[in-house]
């Protein structure tokens, strides 16, 4: 209760209330995330249970009863008779799962390397930041594709479909750590020269304790901003990779996979198989992105346009 009161009284919440864009995006994002988390409870059908599928239901239009079975689906069905609403709910789960874990992974690598680079300085710093520079030369989606391809080469063939999600998380995570490392390094360099760090060194605390107990908490607010914006980017990267066919397998379709499937039916007029997953992806990415933008402005009053 006390925590909640403090949160409501904070500056951040005050600026949140004053920004209608932030409030709306937060509502949309939270609704979508909750819908994804509780997909098994909310979804009318389980699209991965072959017993619940009826091929006769294929290509039902949204809100119209199927010509053969008379069943009606809110957002229609795809070619195999899977309810589009249910596949979206389950697909969003995978998109968010991959996105969130990839960002977490990138964050851990980036924050640790950034802190180490700033604290150690000298050659360690030079090597870490040089690697970051080299990676930054290449667009992250390309890096993710390459890592995905290499990792796929290492996985035994019969495990490839099962491992695809994890490979995807690692590829997107590894392609995205540079942002975190650079920002954390910059912030940590400033913190490092402050008195409290000198005091900590004087009372004899070890470097690990200083880095993670004393410096880390003070560089977290930019990390939070980057993490939010990275989440939107990671969701789009995941969708892009899955759309290209180098991401989530057909057995575990993410929003990108659903769009890939739907693209094939665009010409024959079954627009809903593509349209609804695409809109969901857009809402998800846009709301998270706008939240990130707001957070950046709220935490950095200097950055006013």
């Amino acid at each position, binding site marked *: 209760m006390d925590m909640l009161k403090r949160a409501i009284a904070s500056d951040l919440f005050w600026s949140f209330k004053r920004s209608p864009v932030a409030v709306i995006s937060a509502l949309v994002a939270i609704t979508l995330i909750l819908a994804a988390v509780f997909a098994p409870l909310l979804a009318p059908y389980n699209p991965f249970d072959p017993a619940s599928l009826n091929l006769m239901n294929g290509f039902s239009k949204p809100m119209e009863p199927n010509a053969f079975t008379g069943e009606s689906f809110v957002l229609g069905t795809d070619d195999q008779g899977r309810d589009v609403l249910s596949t979206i709910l389950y697909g969003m789960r995978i998109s968010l799962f991959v996105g969130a874990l990839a960002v977490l992974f990138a964050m851990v690598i980036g924050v640790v390397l950034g802190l180490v680079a700033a604290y150690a300085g000298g050659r360690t710093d030079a090597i870490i930041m040089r690697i970051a520079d080299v990676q930054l030369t290449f667009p992250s989606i390309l890096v993710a594709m390459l890592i995905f*391809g290499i990792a796929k080469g290492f996985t035994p063939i019969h495990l490839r479909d099962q491992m695809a999600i994890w490979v995807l998380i690692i590829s997107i995570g590894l392609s995205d750590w540079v942002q975190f490392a650079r920002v954390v390094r910059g912030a940590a360099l400033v913190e490092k020269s402050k008195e409290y760090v000198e005091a900590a060194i004087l009372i004899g605390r070890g470097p690990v304790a200083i880095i993670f107990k004393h410096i880390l908490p003070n560089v977290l607010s930019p990390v939070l901003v980057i993490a939010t914006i990275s989440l939107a980017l990671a969701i789009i990267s995941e969708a*892009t990779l899955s759309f290209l066919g180098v991401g989530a397998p057909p057995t575990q379709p993410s929003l990108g996979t659903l769009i890939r499937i739907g693209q094939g039916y665009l010409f024959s007029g079954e627009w809903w198989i593509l349209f609804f997953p695409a809109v969901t*992806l*857009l809402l998800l990415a846009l709301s998270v992105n706008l939240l990130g933008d707001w957070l950046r402005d709220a935490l950095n009053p200097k950055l006013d346009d």
Partner: protein
Amino acid sequence: MLSYIVKRALQSVLVLLAVGLVAFSMFRFVGDPVENMLGQERTNADIERLRESLGLNDPFLVQYWDFLVGAVQGDVGVSFRQGRPALELIMERAPATLELALVSAIFAMVLGIVLGIYTAINRKGPITNFILSTSLIGVSLPTFLIGILLIYIFAVELKWLPSFGRGETVDLGWWSTGLLTWSGIKSLILPSITLGLYQMTLIMRLVRSEMSEVLRQDYIRFARARGLSERAINFRHAVKNTLIPVITVAGLQIGSIIAFAIITETVFQWPGVGLLFIDSVQFVDIPVMASYLMLISVMFVGINFLVDMLYLAIDPRLRDGKGS
């Protein structure tokens, strides 16, 4: 200044060596080449002989050196999937990608600069607001959705433009071009808009902020005090000083256009290098992946180097030798 150039060149070479190491490790450690080349009925003696003849028993650095020498001479292995030299496959498809990238880059530059200047001069107004808000949507849409949207509007509904492929091409020596036939040009329109849109908005925003900055400078106010016409101020004095940083940034964008071509080529089934690369990732065709990686790195590193040199030529502060 010379030391700066040498230092920068050395850095570029180091990056390329690192990329070469990654590519080499892909060959060496992802899958076993001997396993791939020998059939079911092999003996240990066969394996040993092949290992020896492929040089797999040499020390690591010797192998790496041989690989680099081969790569520089254009020998980067044979595609596992198609049984043809990887470089040959890439070169065959390079014209399609380069034409697409070139047209997109021109589209992005021209429209980006024009719209950027327009929105900087007319800071308020319905057209400016429209351009800016549309560009915001354009940036948030993933590339592949833009492509699908364009296909839906112009190919499925209006039936004006083709939705996939390059149309008819004309062979000019080894270069096959789609720019000389009407169907080739028509096929190029949607993919190049898809590919160039993101860069276009980027350039537009950059031009807009640079130009607004320039328009606030004293010499512009001075020019106005001298009684020059708005037209002369905007186009003779302001634009010239806006474009220098823009061109260098735009140069860097060419690299990402070629990388993002992968997505556009998949949406439009454009028979370019990107489609080949995606195929190779799907089927773990290491030689093609590695050659693509090396080629594109040479390009990226080369462009970065050129842009840095351009900065050097433009910015006198770097020329004193203090810059690094």
